[in-house]
C-alpha cells in the first residue's frame, strides 16, 4: 500500500453523513464557476527539470502565499489556533469532530505540498513563512467568525487550485484537483456552520454584523487588480486568470451563497484595502 493509499483509506473511514462536505457539493456537477479557457501553453516543467530563474522565483512566491507545508511552522501555528477555537467556542461534539476532520485534511495538504517543495528546492521545504495577508490574522472571537474564515478563506484556496489545474508546473497541476475539492469542502463546512448560526435570531444578527469584516478581507485576498506580477505569472503558465477576473468570479459565487443565507450583502468597496 502506498503512502497516499493509506491516507485515502484513513479518510474514507472518517466519512459521515456530512463529512467530507465536498461530496455533496460536487454530486450535482461542478460547483465552481467556469474559468476562461487558458491560452495555449508554451511551457511545461516537471520535477527535476531546470527552471528559468524568473519562473522558479514566481513559483516559489506563489507557494509561499499558499503556505500549507509540513515544514512551515507558521502554518502549523495557524492549525493550532483552529484547534484552540474549536475547543473553546464550538457548540457541540459534532462540530468539534467536523473541525478535527478539517485539520486532518489540511495536514494531508501539508504533506502533499511538502513533497512538492522538496522536489523544487530542498531549503524551501523547511522555510517558515507566516501568512502575509491580513485575512489570516483577523480576530476570530466567535463560532461565526471561524465559520466565515472557512467559508471565505478556504474558498479562496479552492479558486486558486482550480486555476492550478492548468499550471505549467506539472507536480502542482497533478495535485490541484484534490486540493480544490478539499478546499471547496472546507468552505462548505464553514457555510454549514453559518446556516446553523443563522437559524436563530441572535446568531443571524451576529453573522450579519461580522459579515462586513470578512467580506472585505475575502475580496482583498485576490490582490490588487493592477498587480504588475500577474502578466508574468500568466506568461509563464503559472496562472491563467488575472486578479480582477478571479475576484469577480469568486464574488459572484459568494454573493449567491450569502443571499441564500438571508443576509444582506455589504458594499463591495467598504473596508477594502486592495482594489
Amino acid at each position: 500500500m502506498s503512502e497516499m493509499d493509506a491516507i485515502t483509506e484513513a479518510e474514507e473511514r472518517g466519512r459521515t453523513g456530512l463529512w467530507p462536505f465536498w461530496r455533496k457539493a460536487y454530486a450535482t456537477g461542478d460547483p465552481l464557476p467556469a474559468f476562461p479557457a487558458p491560452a495555449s501553453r508554451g511551457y511545461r516543467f516537471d520535477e527535476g527539470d531546470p527552471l528559468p530563474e524568473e519562473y522558479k522565483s514566481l513559483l516559489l512566491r506563489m507557494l509561499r502565499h499558499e503556505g500549507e507545508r509540513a515544514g512551515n511552522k507558521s502554518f502549523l501555528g495557524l492549525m493550532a489556533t483552529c484547534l484552540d477555537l474549536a475547543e473553546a467556542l464550538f457548540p457541540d461534539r459534532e462540530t468539534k469532530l467536523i473541525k478535527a476532520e478539517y485539520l486532518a485534511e489540511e495536514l494531508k495538504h501539508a504533506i502533499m505540498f511538502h513533497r512538492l517543495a522538496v522536489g523544487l528546492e530542498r531549503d524551501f521545504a523547511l522555510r517558515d513563512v507566516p501568512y502575509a495577508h491580513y485575512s489570516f490574522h483577523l480576530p476570530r472571537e466567535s463560532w461565526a467568525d471561524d465559520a466565515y474564515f472557512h467559508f471565505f478563506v478556504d474558498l479562496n484556496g479552492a479558486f486558486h487550485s482550480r486555476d492550478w489545474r492548468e499550471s505549467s508546473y506539472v507536480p502542482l497541476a497533478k495535485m490541484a484537483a484534490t486540493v480544490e475539492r478539499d478546499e471547496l469542502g472546507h468552505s462548505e463546512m464553514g457555510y454549514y456552520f453559518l446556516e446553523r448560526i443563522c437559524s436563530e435570531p441572535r446568531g443571524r444578527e451576529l453573522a450579519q454584523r461580522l459579515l462586513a469584516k470578512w467580506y472585505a478581507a475575502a475580496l482583498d485576498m485576490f490582490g490588487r487588480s493592477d498587480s504588475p506580477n500577474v502578466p508574468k505569472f500568466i506568461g509563464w503558465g503559472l496562472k491563467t486568470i488575472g486578479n480582477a477576473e478571479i475576484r469577480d468570479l469568486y464574488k459572484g459565487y459568494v454573493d449567491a451563497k450569502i443571499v441564500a443565507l438571508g443576509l444582506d450583502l455589504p458594499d463591495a468597496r467598504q473596508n477594502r484595502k486592495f482594489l
Partner: protein
Amino acid sequence: MSAIAEEIRQAYAAVGITLDQPAAFGTYYRLLCAGCGRMLGQVGDKLLPGMAAEIVGQQRDLYAAGLLGCSCGHQKRLGETPA
C-alpha cells in the same frame, strides 16, 4: 512585542479583553477575558496598521449586547458603563 501586537493589545484592553503571550511561533495570540481569564478567541499579528482599533471599535456594541465577549459578562458590563 511588535508595534502591531501592541496596537492589538491596546485596542482589546479598551473592551476588557487581554492579549495573551504569543501562542504559535510568534504569529498568533490568544484573546483572554480580562475578568475571568477564559479564552475568547485568536488574533494574528499581521493586521494592517490601525485595523485592530477599527475592528474592535466596530464590535463595541456587540460586546455590550452580549453577542461577543465572555459568558461571565465582563465585556458586557464594561459596555454598559458610561464612558
